[in-house]
């Protein structure tokens, strides 16, 4: 049956081509894959492995294999759980407020006014500020003896806001919000500019008040950007380090001991690399889950323009 043979030959040829295409594809992603393997997967594997050891007080000395029990004991320890709780609090303090403020500033700067460019520059200026600089600025502002903010807040004298267990985390959060506001502002400004003016004109004619226009038109259309800011924000809050290192070093009384700082202290102050590895792996897992959940569930409720 010549027909069938022909088809088979063709089929074989097609499958060979598909194979070749697949091979080319894999070849093209290989550099990225190799980079990930070397800098992400391998270190991750090592960290998981390291978490099975009780490391010595000094890194030149032998470690003891303790097995998965170290994971159990670290994860159930009050220090770890406390730091996780502080991290969640930190995210709750910084993210909604930061995003709301970013949107508010972007709305303000979106007006067509003379000299609005100056405000845009001012609002986005914190992007050019490093965490260290922002932290040092606020450290000075919050100083109980010479700080302007302390003076205005009526907290002059005493040990200061940053040494006050009640206010330390909120204070660090404010610094983080301030530092990130430029980025959020730019993000939201770009998103606002992408919303066609005619939509808002249409809504005005349709009788919507300015709040109604914002809520029913602007905000839904900003939602992809807001979603992006939330993902970046959550990951960012889980990795906030510089401001805490400079402002409070995890204190007072561990009130700013977020997970990443706990890991840092365990590893580089207490030389407890095994414990730090466990906490890092858990942090990784948490962020992975958070990101997956966000993409799985939140994304569905987000409008993406076509």
């Amino acid at each position: 049956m010549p027909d069938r043979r022909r088809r088979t030959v063709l089929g074989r040829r097609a499958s060979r081509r598909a194979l070749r295409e697949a091979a080319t594809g894999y070849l093209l992603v290989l550099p990225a894959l190799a980079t990930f393997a070397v800098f992400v997967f391998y270190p991750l594997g090592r960290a998981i492995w390291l978490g099975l050891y009780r490391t010595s007080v000094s890194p030149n000395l032998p470690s003891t294999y303790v097995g998965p029990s170290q994971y159990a004991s670290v994860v159930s320890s009050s220090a770890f759980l406390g730091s996780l709780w502080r991290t969640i609090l930190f995210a709750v303090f910084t993210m909604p407020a930061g995003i709301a403020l970013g949107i508010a500033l972007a709305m303000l700067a979106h007006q067509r006014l003379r000299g609005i460019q100056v405000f845009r520059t001012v609002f986005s200026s914190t992007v050019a500020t490093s965490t260290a600089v922002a932290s040092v600025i606020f450290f000075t502002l919050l100083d109980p003896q010479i700080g302007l903010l302390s003076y205005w807040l009526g907290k002059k004298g005493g040990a200061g806001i940053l040494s006050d267990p009640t206010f330390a985390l909120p204070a660090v959060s404010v610094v983080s919000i301030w530092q990130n506001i430029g980025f959020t502002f730019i993000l939201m400004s770009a998103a606002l500019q992408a919303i066609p003016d005619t939509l808002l004109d249409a809504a005005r004619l349709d009788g919507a008040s300015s709040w109604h226009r914002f809520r029913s038109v602007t905000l839904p259309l900003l939602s992809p950007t807001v979603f992006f800011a939330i993902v970046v924000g959550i990951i960012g809050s889980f990795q906030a380090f510089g401001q805490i290192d400079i402002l409070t070093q995890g204190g007072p009384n561990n009130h700013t001991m977020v997970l990443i700082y706990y890991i840092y202290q365990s590893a580089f102050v207490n030389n407890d690399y095994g414990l730090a590895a466990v906490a890092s792996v858990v942090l990784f897992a948490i962020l992975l889950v958070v990101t997956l959940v966000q993409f799985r569930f939140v994304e569905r409720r987000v409008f993406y323009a076509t």
Partner: protein
Amino acid sequence: MDGGDRPPGAASAISLEGITKSYGEVAAVDDLSLQIDPGELLVLVGPSGCGKSTVLRLIAGLDEPTAGTVRIAGEVVNGIDPKDRDVAMVFQSYALYPHMTVARNIEFPLRARRVPKAERERSVAGVARNLQIDHLLKRKPAALSGGQRQRVALARAIVRRPRAFLMDEPLSNLDAQLRIEMRAALVELQARLGTTVVYVTHDQVEAVTMGRRIAILDSGRLQQVATPAEVQARPANAFVAAFIGSPPMNVMPATLEPGEVTTGTQNAGRHLAVAGGVLPLTGAQQAALGARDLTTVLAGIRAEDLQVDPEGSVRATVSFVESFGAERIAACRLPATGAADGQLVMVRISAGARAPRTGEAVTLGAHAPASLFDPASGARLDA
């Protein structure tokens, strides 16, 4: 120029009185006065950048005029918020809310006005049925074709029964076929609803076919407001003459020469000399010109008023012949004047007549008097 013999007043659905809108030095709209009758479909037409969309935005209240008064149903609406002007707008981009279903889009103006739910649903269903989009109500705009989006945009405008519709090039994003269908549908819809419509377009064919009256705008100034027939027959100036009609009127420089040319009805003491040929002047034109000291004018003559005529005196060479269905237009080049190429004039070949060949030397004759325009201002001389 204003809306002609109508006095500005309470009888108009929309009345613009001396409207100016400036952006810095530039006047987008310059001292415009226009009355729109209740239930009228007025087409505002002009080339892009002429200020026609700005006029619409001034009526809607999306922009405020720098000077002048806007009235809707007799009441001055300057400074009144768009939502309180009770007009609806259909945008060229449709401006559908992309995150809302069709139903929610149509419902939006009712929600904004806190119309009760039951009434909202009834209205939306009614309008959707009316515009044959009831099967699309659950879709998002992204899942609709251009024509469907257009209908949804219309539905959203119609649903709250405004005092007027403002339509800003609503058909220009549609393909040609659909555009022609929608034109008819819009005219029919407007007649049925009886609502005042101000319809903005840059397409003069659309303007001529849709408007009972059309207002022609150029560089922020109103050029002419009249019925399509009048605009075509008696363009107010050279701009209108060259803008309206397909093909537009041939506008040629001409000189006034002494001596009477007698052809049938026409007789006078002077005649027009165009590119070596001779065109007659009517008595009324003679009288109008008599008051002025002019030696050159712009002569406008429609393609349908020209013909290839062995008796004619204007010599030309056929450049090409275009056919639009039954209609044939010959583009004929007049003799060169100096270094410049001769001007192209459009000549309609009457039904049954032989079409000239490309390159053929012909003579052209006119069977209607030319429109005459001032060469400096472009204004009609025999108004």
